[in-house]
């Protein structure tokens, strides 16, 4: 069948729109990378857009020689690793039983979890709880209160449900216990979903900043996201207090900020090409049977 001329026009228009979207999506990112390698003078005169001008890597050296940056960076790594392990274990512990139709009260338990997606205690009761548990200024304030994502848990449950029941029945015949089945049969078969979940949780923990922001006062404990946040906010913290930005030297250079941003997203960018398809299949998997 021949295409109408309207459809041909549309196709050209469509490609144009999509190229524009890609450009707008990637522009801020390339701009930051370009700034991070540029000299301050060119940034301030507004000459840096997609390509570095006045190439310099001095700022990278400055930031990377800042002890506090490395302490905070290391904290982020620790919080991410510990948080991801806890999240994975807890999510598996609930997703697997909920995938079993023989579990009595399964519907009620699912609702018990899903309800928390629509109604939560709110900022202040959460704050009061976490501080009264003595979690302030400790890793637990970050890794515990948001350990289980119900959405992720539902994706895992769907995956477990699709593992053929016959495999487990055969193991029961051979005398395996539930734990035996879980460790010897189900988990080895679930590597794809475990990898996906690990990535989901790891990115969330890596990107998290708010819990640290409200629960931490000790600089040595900050994740790198707070280091960056203070840098971004530092430049305009003076705005509200009446001082003009010009006569305040708190102003942190665009160059330093962009270097910090690049270093903060670097791990995500490094793994992005590899993880992106896992994420996509994970989200689709979860959406098939919500």
């Amino acid at each position, binding site marked *: *069948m021949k295409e*109408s001329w*309207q459809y041909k026009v*549309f196709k050209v228009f*469509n*490609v144009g729109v*999509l190229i524009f*979207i890609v450009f707008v*999506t*990637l*522009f*801020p*990112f390339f*701009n*930051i990378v370009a700034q991070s390698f540029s000299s301050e003078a060119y940034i301030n*005169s*507004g000459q840096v*857009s997609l390509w570095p001008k006045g190439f310099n890597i001095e700022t990278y050296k400055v930031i990377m020689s800042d002890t506090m940056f490395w302490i905070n960076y290391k904290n982020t790594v620790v919080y991410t690793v510990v948080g991801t392990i806890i999240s994975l274990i*807890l999510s598996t*512990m609930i997703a697997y039983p*909920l995938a*079993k139709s*023989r*579990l009595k009260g399964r519907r009620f*338990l699912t609702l*018990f*979890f899903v309800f*928390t997606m*629509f*109604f939560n*205690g*709110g*900022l*202040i*009761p*959460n*704050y*009061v709880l976490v501080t*009264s548990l003595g979690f302030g200024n400790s890793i637990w304030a970050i890794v515990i209160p948001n*350990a289980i994502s119900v959405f992720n848990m539902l994706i895992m449950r769907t995956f477990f449900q699709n593992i053929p029941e016959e495999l487990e029945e055969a193991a029961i015949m051979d005398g395996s216990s*539930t734990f035996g089945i879980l460790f010897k049969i189900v988990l080895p078969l679930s590597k794809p979903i475990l990898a996906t979940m690990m990535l989901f949780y790891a990115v969330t923990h890596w*990107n*998290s*900043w708010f819990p640290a922001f409200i629960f931490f006062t000790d600089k040595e404990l900050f994740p790198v*996201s707070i280091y960056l*946040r203070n840098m*971004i906010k530092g430049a*305009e913290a003076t*705005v*509200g207090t009446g001082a003009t930005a010009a006569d305040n030297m708190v102003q942190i250079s*665009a160059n330093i900020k*962009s270097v*910090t*941003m690049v270093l*903060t997203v670097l791990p995500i960018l490094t793994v992005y*090409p590899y993880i992106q398809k896992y994420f*996509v299949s994970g989200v*689709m998997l979860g*959406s098939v049977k*919500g």
Partner: protein
Amino acid sequence: MEATKKVKDLKISKNELWTSIRKDWQLYSLILLPVLYLIIFKYGPMFGNIIAFRRFIPGGSIVGEEWVGLQYFQMFLNDPTFYKVFANTFILAFLLLVITFPAPIIFALLLNELKNQFFKRFVQTASYLPHFFSVVVVAGMVFEVLALNGPVNSLLASLNFEKISFMQLPEWFRTIFVGVDLWQTLGWGAILYLAALTGINEELYEAARIDGANRWKQTIHITIPGILPTIVVLLILNIGNFLQIGFEKVLLLYNPLTYETADVIATYVYRVGLQSGSFSYGTAIGLFESIIGLLLVLGANYLSKRITDNSLW
């Protein structure tokens, strides 16, 4: 009769429950820790909302000191700032609903028309990227791109327009916020629609072509009805989160100069509650917001069940 039968059923099921717990204790023991976790960290704070009705002193009892009834609720009903942040929240939420909700649908439809798989994958891969960035990094990028000597202002200057100090002007906040949200969610939001699109039966298109339907008519009569269930489910979820408009993003992007349009319920709760230490007052406002959110999702789900036969539960 009915009642006794029900009681009998309940007894049997209780016995059954015990038998199955005894038989399957390992399976049941797995759920203990996650359920305990949920009770403490998700249901605990819900119960903690009790301090909206009691006077709470920081450092004092976790459930507050004494009952004060609806005093804190009356307080925000008489608080002019409350109405301002309530209006801001609604306006932002409404803008997000009419702009960033349909955008991924259109984006998915446009992508679906691409024949070149390589280009399609390239566009998708690029469009997901912002979803993986921390909101702190996103805010940082916004500040840099919109800075007075940033690329946007350079472009304006080269076109002989005045430079604009975007981040300091309340009239720009909504545009910026919605723009950033669109930027960050467009590609990721399209995934589910693309999945739904691949699920549409190819034969329907063939039949339509034989009937002489062009691409546009095929889109209207086959493609859109095909992804409608997905749209409805996501719309309900969106309405449920109607008032939760990227609180962290607002907190990072706003400043006292832009409070006029940027201050939302959640940021106000943060300021009165955590920054000024009026815990009970903040909790009362937060509870009010959560209840509206819950009612919205229940209402949307009910309506959708009545009208389209699609619902979340």
